[in-house]
C-alpha cells in the first residue's frame, strides 16, 4: 500500500512531522507529533483487513488499559485509492523492537527479569479483561530508550467473551510458530486462555536470556518448528546468571500442557515478583 505523505498531511492536518516508520503487508506506520498527545504513531490498516478484526484490536487495547500497552488516542476510517482504511492514532514508544535488540546480544539477567515482570503486568490486565494476546514475541515487544518494555500489536488477540472471528474448525490457529503453544496452533479454541500467552512469554524470556529460540534453531521450516513445540521441551535455562528459581519459572511457563503451567497470569506475575525479590536480597 503506497501512501502519499502530502495527501496524508491533508487528511490529518493536526499532526506535525509526519514521517514513515515502517511498512508491512497489512499496514503502514507513520510517526508524528500531536499537539495534545505528543509523540504518536499513525497506523493505516489495509482495507483487505476485515473491519471487525481491526475493531477487535482497538477494543482489546482499550479494554486492557495497561501502562505496558501503548494507548490508542483516536481511530476512524479514511477514504483512499484502495478503499476505506482504518486508522489508529497511538501512543508512541520511542525505542527498538526487542527482536532487533536481541540480534546484537542477549539481555543481562536483570533486564530479562524486568522484561518478565513488565510483560506480566500487561498480561494480568489482559487476563482481567478476558483477552488473550496470542502473539507475544520479541518482535511485538518494544524496548524503550529508558529500557522499559511495552507489548504491542493486539491484531490477533482473542476476546474470550466474544464469538471467535477466526474459523474455529480450521486446522491451524493464528499464531507465530515457535512462540505459540500447541493448543493455539492446533486451534483448540476452547483451550485458549491466558496460559497460551504465558507459554509465549516463557519462550520470549528464554530467548531474551540466551539470544536463541531453540524451537527455531538451525531450521527455517515452520512445520518442523511446530513439531518441536509439540514434541520437545524447551531446554532448561542454564546461563550462569540465571537463578535456578527463574529457570524453574521458565520451564513451568513453557510446559506443553496448559494445566502444567501457572493457572493465571496473575499467579505467574506474583511468582516472578517473589523471584525478583529473592534475587535482590542476594
Amino acid at each position, binding site marked *: 500500500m503506497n501512501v502519499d505523505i502530502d495527501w496524508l498531511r491533508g487528511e490529518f492536518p493536526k499532526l506535525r512531522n509526519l514521517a514513515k516508520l515502517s511498512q508491512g503487508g497489512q499496514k503502514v506506520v507513520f510517526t508524528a507529533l500531536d499537539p495534545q498527545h505528543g509523540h504518536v504513531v499513525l497506523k493505516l490498516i489495509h482495507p483487505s483487513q476485515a473491519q471487525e478484526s481491526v475493531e477487535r484490536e482497538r477494543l482489546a487495547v482499550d479494554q486492557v488499559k495497561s501502562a505496558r500497552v501503548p494507548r490508542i488516542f483516536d481511530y476512524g476510517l479514511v477514504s483512499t485509492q484502495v478503499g476505506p482504511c482504518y486508522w489508529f492514532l497511538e501512543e508512541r514508544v520511542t525505542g527498538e523492537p526487542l527482536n532487533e535488540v536481541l540480534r546484537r546480544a542477549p539481555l543481562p539477567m536483570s533486564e530479562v527479569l524486568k522484561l518478565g515482570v513488565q510483560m506480566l503486568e500487561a498480561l494480568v490486565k489482559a487476563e482481567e479483561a478476558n483477552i488473550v494476546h496470542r502473539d507475544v514475541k520479541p518482535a511485538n515487544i518494544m524496548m524503550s530508550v529508558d529500557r522499559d518494555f511495552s507489548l504491542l500489536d493486539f491484531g490477533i488477540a482473542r476476546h474470550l467473551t466474544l464469538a471467535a472471528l477466526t474459523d474455529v474448525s480450521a486446522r491451524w490457529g493464528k499464531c507465530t510458530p515457535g512462540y505459540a503453544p500447541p493448543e493455539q496452533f492446533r486451534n483448540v479454541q476452547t483451550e485458549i486462555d491466558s496460559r497460551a500467552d504465558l507459554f509465549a512469554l516463557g519462550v520470549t524470556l528464554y530467548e531474551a536470556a540466551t539470544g536463541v529460540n531453540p524451537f527455531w534453531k538451525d531450521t527455517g521450516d515452520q512445520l518442523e518448528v511446530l513439531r518441536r513445540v509439540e514434541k520437545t521441551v524447551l531446554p532448561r535455562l542454564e546461563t550462569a546468571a540465571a537463578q535456578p528459581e527463574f529457570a*524453574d519459572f521458565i*520451564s*513451568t511457563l513453557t510446559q506443553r*500442557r496448559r494445566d502444567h503451567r501457572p493457572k493465571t497470569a496473575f499467579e505467574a506475575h506474583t511468582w516472578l515478583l517473589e523471584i525478583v525479590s529473592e534475587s535482590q536480597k542476594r
Partner: protein
Amino acid sequence: MKLYLQFGHGMMEHCRHLIQSWNGGTVVLSPRDLEESRMQKFADRMRDFPDTSLLFDPQLYLPRSNHETLCAYSYWPSNYSTGVSWEVANLRTLLSEIFDLNARLGSDAIILPGLLASEVSDDWLDIQSAILNEAAMMGVQQELYPTIALSDAAILNTDQISKLLEAAESWDAPGYYLVCQHPRGEYLVNNPVWVSNILDIAAGIKLNGAKVILGYCSHQMLISACAKVDAICSGTFLNVRSFPPEKFSRAESDPKQRSTWFYCPQGLSEYKDSFLDIAHRIGVLDDLRPEEKFGGYANRLFSGPQPTTIGLKEPVAFRHYLNSLHVQALSAEKASFDETVNCYEETLNRAEDLLSSLHQSGIRGQQRDFRDIIDVQRAAIAALVATRGPILRRHWSAL
C-alpha cells in the same frame, strides 16, 4: 499422608485392632463385602472408638453389576439405563438413598458414586458433573467427594488425563476419591506412565485446592506422598490393594487358603515363607527384619527357628502389612516437596541395595518383588519433578 483402611474380606477384626492401636483412623466401608445390616453394626461399633472416621464407598463403578451383595443395597439401581438413570429425578433418588445410608452409618464425608471411565469421554465427564452438581444442590452438611474411577486404558492415555484435569478445574468439590485400575491385573504395576499419570492427576487436583484420597492401593502408591495425596487406602487381600473392576461386577467366592506373604518394608517387597526359610538357611534372614517402628507383628519370624516352623498366620501378616504401611505413609510426607521427593528416593535406594544383595543370595519376592518396580517409580518421580515440580515446590505448604 495417611493410610485409610479399605474394608474387604476379613477386615472387621483388623479394623478394630488397628484403629485401636493407632488411636484412631479412617475406614472406607465396602458394600461389596458386607451386607447392609452387618455394615450398620460394624459402623456403630467403630464409631465408639475415639478419633475414628468412616467413609462409605458406594462402588457404583459398574451399575449393571450382578453382584448379589451390592445389588441388595437399597440405593443400587434395579433397572439401570445409561441415559435414564442419570436424569435429574433418578439421580436425585439415587443420591438421596446414598445420603440416607451415609447418615445411618455416621460417615464423616460422603463419597459420591462414579462410573468407571473406560475412556475419559464427554459423556462420562457430563455424568461426573451432573452427579456433583445435583449432590451439591441437595444441601447435605458433610463434604462431598466425587469418585473418579479410571480404567487402565484411560490412565495410560496422557491426552485423556489432560482432558480430565481440564474438566476438573471447573468442578467445585473439597476432595476426590480416586480409584485406578491396574494394567493387565498386575499387583505391582510395571509401567511408569501409569504411575506418572496417577501422580499427575493427584497433583493437578491438589493444586486446584481439593483433597485426594487414593483408593485400593498397595505400598507402590507410597510414592503419591510426592503429589501431596492426603490418604491412600489399603487392606488385606489383593482385591483391595488394587482396583479390579470385575470384582464389583459379580460375586466371588471367599478367598481360599493361599500363601501367606511377609512384607519387608525396607525392601518394599513381600516374601513367601519358603523364601524366608532359604534366607534363614544361608544366614541373611535378619536383613529382612523390620525395624521396631513397624510394630513387631512379625518378630516371631526372626526369633531363631526356621520361619515355616513358626508360621506367619495370615491375619498377623495382614496386620503387619497394614501397620507397616501406616507407619511408612505417615513418614512419607515431609515439610517441602524436595524433602518428600528425596525421602522417597532414599527409600528406593535403600530398597534397591537390599534387594540386590538378597537376589545374590537367591531370595526373591517373585511377583511381589519390588526390584523391577524401582525404576518405574524413579521414572514417575522424574516426570512429576519435570512437569509440576516448581509449582508443587512453591505451593507445598498450602496444599
